[in-house]
């Protein structure tokens, strides 16, 4: 437990260390979210889009992107880089294995990103766009749990993609594909309700909706009561399934490692 907390603290500290980077990350998220919100809110000029009126649509678009950015991280690049540079050799002697270390580090980083990027950008977005806070206190609790589960899912998807470095050498191209899948199929750039029905059917059997769509529908209180717990259960299911996949993947990757001296 203690090494895990240390890794999480380290992840969060890295996110805090470079002040300019903190500002840049926030401005960067703000730029994308202004573009996205402008387009979708203009689309709602003539009436609700996919059943969402302007305030709900604006809030969904803003929350979905900010959560996706905070919990998405770049675990795949981090893992791929460790393999490419050979830093993986020292990872093998740590008191935690790479999977647990990467996940703990990612959770710390995600928490810092939520505080440093998502919260201030959401507050600033209120100046120009119709965004609304949840009306019920319980929604905040559900949202917090949902974002935590989203971070676990996001970190493990990244870890699995990063493990491909053991086969491909570099993961730059695959990382692009993963980012595209997250942007398009998680609700981050296109609300899931606004996707064509066939794509929605595909999204229903993929883990990406756990990253942005679920936290956003909970925050907008579009889903409440037992249904909300059902969504949290879905996120937990993906978190566990991916945990198993990561364990298998890491066991496979370790068999492929050859360390040539020190």
């Amino acid at each position: 437990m203690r090494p895990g907390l240390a890794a999480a603290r380290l992840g969060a500290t890295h996110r805090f260390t470079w002040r300019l980077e903190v500002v840049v990350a926030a401005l960067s998220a703000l730029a994308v979210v202004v573009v996205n919100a402008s387009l979708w809110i203009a689309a709602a000029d003539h009436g609700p889009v996919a059943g969402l009126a302007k305030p709900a649509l604006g809030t969904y678009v803003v929350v979905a992107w900010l959560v996706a950015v905070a919990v998405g991280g770049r675990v795949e690049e981090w893992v791929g880089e460790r393999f490419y540079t050979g830093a993986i050799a020292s990872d093998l002697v740590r008191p935690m294995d790479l999977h647990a270390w990467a996940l703990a580090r990612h959770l710390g980083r995600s928490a810092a990103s939520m505080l440093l990027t998502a919260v201030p950008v959401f507050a600033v977005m209120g100046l120009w766009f119709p965004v609304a806070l949840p009306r019920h206190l319980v929604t905040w609790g559900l949202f917090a749990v949902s974002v935590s589960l989203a971070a676990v899912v996001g970190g493990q998807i990244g870890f699995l993609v990063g493990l491909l470095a053991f086969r491909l050498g570099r993961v730059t191209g695959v990382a692009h594909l993963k980012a595209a899948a997250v942007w398009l199929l998680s609700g981050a750039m296109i609300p899931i309700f606004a996707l064509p029905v066939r794509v929605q059917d595909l999204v229903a059997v993929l883990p990406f909706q756990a990253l942005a769509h679920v936290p956003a529908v909970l925050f907008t209180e579009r889903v409440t009561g037992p249904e909300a717990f059902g969504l949290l259960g879905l996120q937990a299911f993906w978190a566990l399934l991916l945990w198993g996949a990561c364990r298998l993947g890491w066991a496979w990757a370790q068999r492929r490692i050859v360390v040539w001296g020190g």
Partner: protein
Amino acid sequence: MRRWLAWLGIRLQARLAWPADALAGVVGDLVVAAVGVAVVLALYAHVQDLRGWSAGEVLMAWGLAQASLAGTRAAFGGLWVLNRRYVLGGDLDRVLLRPADPFAQVMVDHADPGPLWGLVAGLGVFGWGAGEAGVALGVVQVLAVVGFVFGGVALIAGVLTTMASVGFFVRHEGSAVGLAAQGIAFAHVPLDALPPAWALLVTTAVPFAFTGVVPAAWFTGHAPWAAVAWGQPLVGLAAFGLGQVVWRVGLRWYGSVGH
């Protein structure tokens, strides 16, 4: 000139020596193109027009902006690493020792044909959008596209040079350059759809609208931008000129780390 071409040839050869990495770059550009188009199509599945702009017209704006960004990355990719490697890392020392222009040296050092796929994809999306919007593309229009893409490249390169050169005074690792490049996301948004303060920002201080919606308005006739779109290459040249001025002033502030 011959010396520059020989140098460029060596750079391109070196870049292609790693085919997997080059291929990854191509995949990345095409994926970005696919995502941008998918978002526009998903949006327009629910509406006929967005503040007067049809799907085809927005795709035209998007294609022009992406083509300009890809051209900038191919020719001015050095701007993305200028701060970390040259200003903070001290690689500028060896550049300054040579008789050739230092800015040109850094840019040629990082010239990369990979992003040109993004340029092809951008132009393809522009052509598709023009077909959807019913805009006929004759010789004059094709020449205008070439002019607008060159103007767009000059504009983006100018803004990014300014941001990178600020690093001579306020040390940064180049994150400000990446941030500014991200501003290109605004280029395809109809200006009426943006909050007024943001519309003002992307048409004046960081005029990225001049790489997308403004030149697209020249083809579609959207007022008032159709009337000023012809001046886009001039805006590009002005931005490039400003970037060069800030670069030259900044260069005098450069303190070597002792390479």
